[in-house]
């Protein structure tokens, strides 16, 4: 079985569990946030993928991280993936799950990176603006990323709308 098929299998299983639990929207959002944190933290990623660390220990770390901050379903799903030794594929599995969830609602995933958190009003207006701009209803996922410095970067499927300060600075550096 190829890695891609395996990732898709895990994503489908997690999706079905969350939908059966009736917490798909909430679980999907929490998993998405956890995946972005997982990608940005080398220590967390190394710990959860270290074969020398016992599975029980890695699962305990997950429960410590998410316990009380996320739903029990989210915690159990992440623990399940880490316990099965697929921690390295966790972000890809979660992205497939989010895509599947959005597709089930005829939505496109819009990943928005911002240096600061967006208010609910800003998220609603931004979702509407992106929908108008792309012609697609979007499932907005906001990621707080200090490296953006300022402004926003929105990615919808293959379309990237970049209004970040970091990109402007990079362009200025290139011109200089």
């Amino acid at each position, binding site marked *: 079985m190829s890695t891609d098929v395996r990732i898709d299998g895990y994503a489908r299983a997690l999706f079905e569990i969350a939908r059966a639990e009736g917490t798909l929207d909430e679980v999907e959002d929490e998993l998405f946030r956890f995946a972005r944190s997982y990608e940005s933290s080398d220590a967390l990623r190394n710990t959860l993928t270290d074969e020398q660390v016992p599975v029980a220990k890695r699962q305990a770390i997950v429960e410590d991280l998410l316990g009380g901050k996320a739903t029990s379903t989210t915690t159990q799903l992440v623990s399940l993936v880490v316990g099965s030794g697929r921690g390295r594929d966790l972000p890809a599995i979660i992205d497939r799950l989010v895509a599947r969830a959005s597709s089930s609602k005829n939505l496109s995933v819009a990943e928005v990176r*911002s*240096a*600061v958190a*967006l208010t609910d009003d*800003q998220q609603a*207006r*931004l979702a*509407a*603006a*992106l929908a*108008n*701009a792309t012609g697609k209803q979007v499932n907005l996922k906001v990621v707080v990323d200090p490296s953006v*410095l*300022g*402004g*926003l970067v*929105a990615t919808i499927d293959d379309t990237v*709308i970049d*209004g970040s*300060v970091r990109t402007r*600075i990079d362009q*200025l*550096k290139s011109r*200089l």
Partner: protein
Amino acid sequence: MNTVNVLTVLAADDHHDIDPSRSVHWLWPEQAELIYGTVSSLIIFGLLFKFAGPMVAKAFKARTERIQDELDSSAAAQTEAAAEAAEIRKAAGDIESERARLLADADAQAEAVLAEGRARLDAEVADLNAKADADIALAGSRVGDELRAEVARLANAATEQALAAGAVDAATQQELIEAFIAKVGANA
């Protein structure tokens, strides 16, 4: 006393009235003496002609042949000398023409060397000029590049420093977010 005088004395003995201590004539001897003297002279000349003549003729002939040989030798020597002189003149002429040819060759080679040297010198000067121009342009470009790089580096450093100091404050963050939403919405 020679033979003529003896004959004269003997003839005088026949004429007793003649004083033997005196001459009959101051110029002419006695007739008999004259006859005897003439005959004797003729005999002597005849003998001389017979015996000494061939020797003298032979000597003259030998002398003539020797002189002729010497003349022939001289003529041959003169001819040989003339030939040698001609050879010498010819050799001298050849030497002169060879000298002229060598001088002409040397002049041609010297001219060719000078021309080649001038051409090479001109090419080297042109190369040096081109290289100098290229070096100047390169140096100018390098200075420009270094200046731009330095400006960029300073600008980057200033930007990073400003960002580290919180140049993008909360108000600015909100302005940027609102501007982004407005811009995306306007693109509908």
